[in-house]
């Protein structure tokens, strides 16, 4: 080995070491909030003192967790009723749209797709006041009270509709990769559009379905804006309840932190178990770079 080569190997090692140092330092910074959440949530009230703010609990107790769970439970149930049907419906719509926009195109499909995409970026504040009005009108049309405006069905409707753009995008970008010959062959065999969808496209849609369901479940679970405008107190999902628990002056930090962790568990579990699909959903949100 020549001297130059040795020096360059040495330099590369030093660079790698410096990089590793920064990476580890940032991991520690990123995990500070996690430490705070966990350490504080297990503290008894007697240790809720500024001087012990950063200490681990001296006596560990799950009391705050128990109280937080009691307070948050109705919200978690509401969120499940919201996020499960919401993400399934979004998935069905997105899949059909994506199929048509990639494999069964009609004149103007590109313009339409662009118009859809804008729906992904609109600030929902811009539709909120009319949306409330529309949901109230739907209730009086259907002769119901508090189903569309104030209830979970209305919230599901809003999420499914405003989720159409992203779900369509994910499925469309996935279906573009299916060879057109497969579709053509099915067509030649005399299968119509729906038949082809059912027997050729849907069976290979697994990954895209996973991506969309994870994406929609996460955004429905974490949504606060729609929930705060559209639901009445007995239908508040987790995020709104969490904000109210934490916003109350009397709630001790330990309960706030325990509640924040409880509210985050479902999406965290999904992230850890299905991280690969979660990442793909994120990337789809960036369109195609």
């Amino acid at each position, binding site marked *: 080995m020549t001297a130059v080569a040795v020096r360059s190997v040495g330099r590369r090692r030093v660079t790698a070491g410096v*990089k590793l140092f920064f990476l580890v330092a940032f991991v520690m910074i990123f995990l500070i909030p996690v430490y*705070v959440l966990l350490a504080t949530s297990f503290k008894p009230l007697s240790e809720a003192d500024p001087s012990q703010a950063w200490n681990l609990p001296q006596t560990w107790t799950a009391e705050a967790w128990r109280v937080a769970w009691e307070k948050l439970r109705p919200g978690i149930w509401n969120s499940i009723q919201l996020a499960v049907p919401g993400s399934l419906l979004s998935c069905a719509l997105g899949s059909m749209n994506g199929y048509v926009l990639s494999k069964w195109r009609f004149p103007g499909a590109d313009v339409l797709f662009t118009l859809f995409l804008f729906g992904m970026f609109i600030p929902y504040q811009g539709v909120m006041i009319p949306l409330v009005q529309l949901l109230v009108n739907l209730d009086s049309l259907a002769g119901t009270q508090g189903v569309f405006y104030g209830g979970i069905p209305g919230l599901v409707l809003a999420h499914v509709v405003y989720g159409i753009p992203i779900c369509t995008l994910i499925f469309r970008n996935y279906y573009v990769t299916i060879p057109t010959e497969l579709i053509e062959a099915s067509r030649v065999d005399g299968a119509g559009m729906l038949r082809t969808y059912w027997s050729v496209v849907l069976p290979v849609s697994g990954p895209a379905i996973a991506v969309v369901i994870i994406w929609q479940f996460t955004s429905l679970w974490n949504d606060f804006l729609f929930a705060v405008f559209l639901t009445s107190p007995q239908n508040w999902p987790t995020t709104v309840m969490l904000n109210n628990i934490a916003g109350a002056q009397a709630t001790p930090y330990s309960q706030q932190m325990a509640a924040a962790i409880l509210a985050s568990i479902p999406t965290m579990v999904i992230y850890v178990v299905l991280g690969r699909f979660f990442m793909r959903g994120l990337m789809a949100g*960036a369109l195609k770079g």
Partner: protein
Amino acid sequence: MRRPPYPLKNPRGVRTVRRARTWLPGLLLVAPSIVAIGVFVYGMLGWNFRLAMTDRHSTRQPEEHFVGLENFINIWSEARWHLSVRHAVVFTVVFVLGALLLGWFLAFLMEKGIKGEGTFRTIYLFPMAISFVATGIVWRWLMNSGQDERAVGLNRLFDAIGLPQWAWFRDPEWGMAAMAIPAIWQMSGYVMALFLAGFRGVPEELREAARVDGCTEWGVYRHVVLPMLRPVTLSALIILGHISLKVFDLIVAVSGKQIITDVPAVYMWVAVFDSDDPAKGATIAAYIVLAVAVFVIPYLVWSVRKEKQS
């Protein structure tokens, strides 16, 4: 010589009908979504703009009149509106630049592959899975403005290691810069993932070719890698920018409706629920939509066109 676009022997009408038969079912299948997007996105946006141009300053008011752009102009004479716009600008600048730089830096550190990359990525990205409300609760504790013996959170930590304490988001001048910190914490992992994909998209042969031409490692980076990261940077900018301009959950979770951290989205909420002034709420909402549309529409047109070319 260009071929005619369709066989000339076929009379045009027959062909159109036959073609329509192939695409009509598709259109029908998408029709419900088209109607939904038409009504819920474009219809509602239009309705909101119309409402913003009326004098409906109370929901109990029997009738409304068209007042043109009056609301859009009058709001600029309110001190609170000025404050909330200023806050949104400070927040956006700090958040977008912060998340972009940190995300880029993290991707840069991992770009060449490093032991345990998967673990690092998982940790940097996990805040994305958490709601802004939960994030806000932890960071409100961390950025508590109490100082010295009353200090908790970061102030106590900073005091212990000799760093200066700060009022964080309660700082009247630059509090919104502090408010951007939790948002950076939450979103920079995402930017990292985008940049990492961008870095990995640069073919190794290109770098090698530049090296053979005598480029230093830094030169390769400057002249080969960086230009190829431009599209990713643009995507990241758009995504961060539109999140930033409509930021709502985080602010509500950290400080509620306090004027000291007011932004347009929170002000709109106050206008609708506390002041019962739909026209004003709609006006603020319209401004938020315009601020986002100004850069998102050109971006969408550009990216759809680019995709069509390739």
